[in-house]
């Protein structure tokens, strides 16, 4: 044992010092490098940027060194040398020097003294003005008078000086241009030389700049004041908002669709995390910054999922450019009716709609065998149905049917009827001609989904119910979208007969119908209805007050991950998205659960003991993978918390009118019948043409312009041949889907040419806002009347709410930037006509003569009030007595001048050409059209009533 004094701790100290030193070094390294990975990214970005510039420079050098380019360059160089030599010649030099001397002398002897004097004068003036102000307060008026005189004198002097300077400068310019002439060739060739090498030099310059002025490595940070958030993403993603991409690789890449996302949402105001989430403040590792760390509540949204944030600020009703996924998801939720079971904020706002039909009359509506089969798998009867599969067995289906039967009212369905072929044919004719095909189809699934597919409807529906339904759908289902087609009873019977004939032998007959009245079975059915919450989508007698049975989804995107019951599938599902535990990436884990739920809603019960009443209840919607991914974007975006008011993109004014209008248009499927827009052709040479394609063949298409086109040098109305190879892209018109069926009928059966048959399709609504008066449109939408006697297809009565009709009328006005709802129509005021009469005595009488002239003869085709034209009603034209309240005066004039420009193909001819009808109404075609318009806006009563001497024409049967 050594004594204490003899012990040595050197070894220990050395070791500890060493550890301390190492620790210090590590701490230093960690502080400078380890915790600052962005430094490396930034440095790498600048390297890439430099490399990129260098590559461009190298390419430019290579291009410059090409033999051809070199030859050109050398040729110019020689020319330049020659020009220089020419300039160096003594004779030229002598002349040049002489002028140069003159110029210098001018500068020195004239210009300089004048400029100096001018400056002195200006200074003096400033002093004088100062003195004037001072005198005002300190001295008498005498001094002020004096200084005012002084100012005026100086002012005068400076004007004179300015004139002199101007003269001298003119002289100088002359001399200078003399000098330039000598050097002209040199300047020209120098410039030309530069143009050959400028590319190269520019790149060189950029390169040098990037090298020498490389920014210091630093944290780039955006402070979003209102949100009190700091966003440092751009410390690594340096190139995200640059004009040019230097690499496709992250984090160096440019933002995709930068024009939509970044240009509309500048990072200095929105940062990155507002859309992408993540932990934008973190700088110590990419994983941390992306929020892909344990317990971070909002991991980063990558790719399409970023669209989930659109609804934080934007109205859900608006279709956004760049928000395609979330828009699809919103539409899908509305279509599937998710909010029938799950309360979701912002959905289910339209009280004039329903998800599934009311079942209060089910027993008089359908065949019980059909209902039993339907409940066991709706999609096997109709694959396009929105009704999901509740996976019920036959017993369950029978029980539910029994309950519904005993809780519905209505009439006793009659005996099954058979109809003769003629009746069915007649029904088919009406079905095809009045417009049912706009929403429904009588053949197996053809993609039309607005109304139910009717290919097997005969197996489902009772004839008598159908007749009554067709006569007035809202009587049976007050919230149905199905409009009233104003059928009379006879027609309704024909159509119902046709529909009941549509069968495919799909149904098996029930062995017994006793269960329908059995109370015990019904009791079991009631439990099932309660369990599955059928009343969420359907109105069921006695269950009107029940609430939705599903979990609220309004903030599902923020719901805690431990609240999701993975059952026994946790590992499997998490592994599927590359996670070990759900905390690693809460967002991905949540999406994994939702994905599994939507794919197979009840799979979480697998392998677990659950009492029957605790088992999962959500039905299977048969969604495709894409649909599920789309829905996940929306579900991710439904989160708690609101952004400050200033971030909210309010939907206002014209935009609001258009968005709301489009919604109503979609709701009632207006585009099933009406064409709303026209074709737009984008040609390769940049010309954009608006009109309609009339004919397409292998090499060309024939395009009728609907608007004058300067680029093509053609007028509206003209049809032109355009080679397919000249076309860059085309966007097709929207709507009017029923047209092809109608055209087909008139071609096949009546032997018309297709173009002619178009007359029988529903009117095109392109430009409708310019055509009709707002109040009239509102009334018409509420209560349509037949306007076009030749049409078989008819505008149904939608029984829309006043709000819906207003929204639609406003939509058409907003589309054409027309006034709504009030518009001043001068033509109908007394003063207007008085003035016209003063200008042209007998104005309206002359217009009437024009109207009645045998060569215009409006009444030959047009109905006016009580007076109908000769011939069959199908050949008549619209009632002119309606024009006053229906049409806009300007539109009438344009229409009369050339109807084909507004509605190509219309049977209304053009009448007013230069120089015609001068004996009846002297004036230009414009004046004649205006006069007729004024007459139509003021049709005298006697023109609308059958007069004794005119009523000779026989009444047709």
């Amino acid at each position, binding site marked *: 044992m050594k004594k204490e004094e003899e012990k040595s701790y050197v070894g220990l100290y050395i070791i500890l010092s060493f550890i301390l030193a190492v620790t210090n070094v590590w701490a230093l390294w960690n502080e400078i490098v380890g915790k600052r990975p962005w430094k490396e990214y930034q440095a790498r970005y600048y390297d890439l940027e430099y490399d990129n510039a260098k590559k461009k420079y190298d390419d430019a050098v290579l291009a410059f060194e090409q033999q051809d380019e070199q030859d050109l360059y050398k040729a110019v160089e020689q020319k330049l040398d020659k020009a220089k030599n020419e300039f160096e010649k003594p004779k030229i030099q002598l002349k040049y020097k002489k002028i140069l001397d003159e110029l210098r002398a001018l500068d020195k002897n004239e210009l300089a003294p004048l400029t100096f004097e001018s400056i002195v004068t200006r200074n003096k003036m400033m002093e004088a003005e100062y003195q004037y102000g001072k005198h005002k307060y300190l001295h008498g008026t005498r001094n002020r008078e004096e200084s005012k005189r002084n100012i005026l004198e100086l002012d005068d002097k400076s004007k004179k000086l300015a004139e002199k300077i101007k003269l001298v400068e003119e002289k100088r310019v002359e001399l200078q241009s003399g000098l330039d002439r000598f050097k002209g060739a040199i300047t020209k060739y120098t410039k030309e030389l530069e143009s050959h090498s400028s590319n190269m030099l520019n790149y060189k310059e950029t390169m040098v700049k990037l090298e020498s002025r490389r920014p210091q490595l630093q944290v780039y940070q955006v402070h979003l004041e209102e949100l009190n958030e700091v966003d440092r993403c751009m410390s690594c993603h340096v190139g995200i908002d640059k004009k040019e991409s230097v690499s496709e690789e992250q984090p160096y890449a440019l933002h995709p669709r930068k024009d939509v996302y970044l240009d509309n949402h500048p990072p200095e105001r929105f940062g990155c995390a507002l859309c992408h989430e993540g932990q934008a403040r973190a700088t110590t590792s990419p994983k941390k910054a992306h929020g892909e760390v344990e317990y971070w509540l909002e991991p980063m949204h990558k790719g399409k999922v970023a669209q989930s944030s659109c609804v934080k600020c934007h109205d859900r009703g608006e279709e956004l450019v760049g928000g395609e996924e979330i828009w699809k998801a919103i539409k899908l939720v509305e279509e599937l009716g998710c909010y029938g079971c799950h309360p979701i904020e912002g959905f289910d706002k339209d009280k004039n709609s329903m998800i599934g039909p009311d079942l209060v009359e089910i027993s008089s509506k359908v065949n019980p065998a059909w209902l039993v089969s339907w409940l066991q798998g709706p999609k096997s009867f109709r694959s396009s149905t929105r009704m999901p599969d509740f996976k019920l067995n036959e017993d369950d289906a029978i029980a539910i049917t029994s309950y519904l039967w005993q809780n519905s009212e209505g009439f006793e369905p009659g005996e099954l009827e058979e109809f003769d072929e003629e009746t069915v044919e007649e029904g088919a004719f009406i079905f095809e001609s009045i417009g049912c095909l706009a929403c429904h189809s009588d053949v197996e699934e053809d993609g039309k989904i607005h109304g139910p597919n009717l290919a097997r409807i005969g197996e489902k529906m009772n004839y008598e119910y159908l007749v009554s339904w067709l006569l007035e759908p809202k009587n049976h289902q007050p919230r149905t979208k199905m409009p009233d087609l104003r059928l009379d009873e006879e027609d309704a019977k024909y159509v119902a007969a046709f529909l009941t004939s549509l069968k495919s032998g799909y149904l098996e007959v029930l062995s017994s119908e006793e269960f329908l009245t059995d109370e015990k079975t019904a009791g079991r059915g009631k439990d099932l209805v309660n369990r599955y919450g059928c009343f969420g989508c359907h109105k069921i007698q006695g269950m009107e007050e029940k609430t939705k049975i599903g979990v609220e989804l309004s903030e599902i995107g923020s719901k805690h991950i431990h609240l999701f019951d993975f059952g026994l599938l946790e590992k499997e599902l998490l592994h599927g998205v590359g996670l070990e535990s759900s905390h690693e990436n809460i967002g991905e884990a949540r999406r994994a659960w939702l994905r599994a739920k939507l794919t197979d809603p009840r799979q979480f019960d697998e392998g677990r003991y659950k009492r029957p009443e605790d088992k999962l209840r959500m039905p299977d919607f048969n969604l495709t993978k894409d649909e599920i991914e789309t829905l996940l974007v929306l579900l991710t975006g439904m989160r708690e918390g609101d952004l400050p008011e200033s971030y909210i993109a309010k939907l206002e004014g014209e935009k609001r009118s258009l968005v709301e209008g489009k919604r109503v248009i979609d709701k009632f499927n207006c585009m099933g019948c009406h064409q709303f827009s026209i074709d737009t052709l984008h040609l390769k040479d940049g010309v954009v043409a608006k009109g309609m394609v009339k004919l397409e063949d292998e090499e060309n298409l024939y395009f009728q312009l609907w608007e004058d086109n300067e680029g093509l040098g053609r007028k509206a109305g003209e049809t032109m041949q355009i080679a397919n190879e000249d076309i860059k892209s085309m966007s097709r018109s929207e709507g009017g889907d029923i047209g092809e069926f109608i055209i087909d009928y008139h071609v096949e*059966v009546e032997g018309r040419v297709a173009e002619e048959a178009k007359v029988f399709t529903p009117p095109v609504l392109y430009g409708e806002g310019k055509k009709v008066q707002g109040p009239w449109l509102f009334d018409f939408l509420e209560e349509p009347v037949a306007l076009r006697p030749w049409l078989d297809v008819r505008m149904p009565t939608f029984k829309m709410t006043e709000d819906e009709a207003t929204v639609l009328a406003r939509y058409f006005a907003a589309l054409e930037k027309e006034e709504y709802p009030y518009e001043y129509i001068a033509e109908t005021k007394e003063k207007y006509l008085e003035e016209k009469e003063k200008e042209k005595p007998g104005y309206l009488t002359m217009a009437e003569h024009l109207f009645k002239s045998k060569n215009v003869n409006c009444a030959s085709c047009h109905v006016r009030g009580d007076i109908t034209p000769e011939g069959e009603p199908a050949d008549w034209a619209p009632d002119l007595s309606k024009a006053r309240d229906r049409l806009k005066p300007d539109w009438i004039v344009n229409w009369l001048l050339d109807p084909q420009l507004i509605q*190509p193909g219309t049977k209304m001819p053009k009448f007013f050409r230069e120089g015609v009808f001068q004996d009846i109404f002297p004036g230009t075609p414009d004046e004649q059209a205006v006069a007729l318009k004024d007459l139509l806006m003021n049709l005298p009563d006697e023109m609308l009533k059958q007069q004794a001497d005119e009523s000779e024409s026989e009444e047709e049967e």
Partner: protein
Amino acid sequence: MKKFAGRYNIICFLAIAMLSLVLFFGNSRNILAAYEGGAVSNGGTITGTVKIAGDAPEAKTLKVDKDQATCGHDDIPSEALIVSGDSAIKNAVVSITKISKGKKFEGGTTTIDQKGCVFIPHVSMVPPGSTIELLNSDDIMHNLHSWSMKNTAFNEGVTGHGKLPKTFEFPETIKITCDVHKWMTSWLIVQENPYYAITGADGKFKLEGVPAGTYTVQAWQESLGKTTQEVTVSAGGEAKADFELEEKSKKKRKRKRK
């Protein structure tokens, strides 16, 4: 020698100028490049008859339900399908569908009249690019409505005893109607080449001056549609081609009378 070279140059220049002109027009308007007319020596002939297959349908009449003072009180015989006793079809159009070179294209219909509320002639023919006078010999207004697809469509009122000149650029078959008097129909065929014939009441046709070769010959009739056959013509020879057109079975959907 020098003189010859000079002339040679001019010829060369002219040839190139002509060629570029042809190319220019050819590119700007495909239709002009489609047919080239010139002299045909020792051309052949195609003759034949157009008949209807099966029984001749009953002749139809059109009801005059308007302007009877001018149009007459009686029904007008329909010209949509006129069949003679031996099944021959009137107003069928027989033509060679694709021929790029042949005799000069001259003539064609110069006027279509509306007289007594009937179009005269019922079927007419013009070369592309020609102008035709559309007349109205009646004392009432008629409108002329062309249901064309390639040529700019028009619909204009024509005053009594007035006229309307119209030019047709592209070859196509155009239906022209008067919408005021719905029974009035006429057909204008803007024909690509001069090899066409409109059959008379005997259904006979004759295509003359056809360069030797094999062609697709088409017979078309407004109510019966068209049919084609291959015909080979020898130099100076006469080829026979008879056509039979079949009545299409129409979808039956009657309209209920109320």
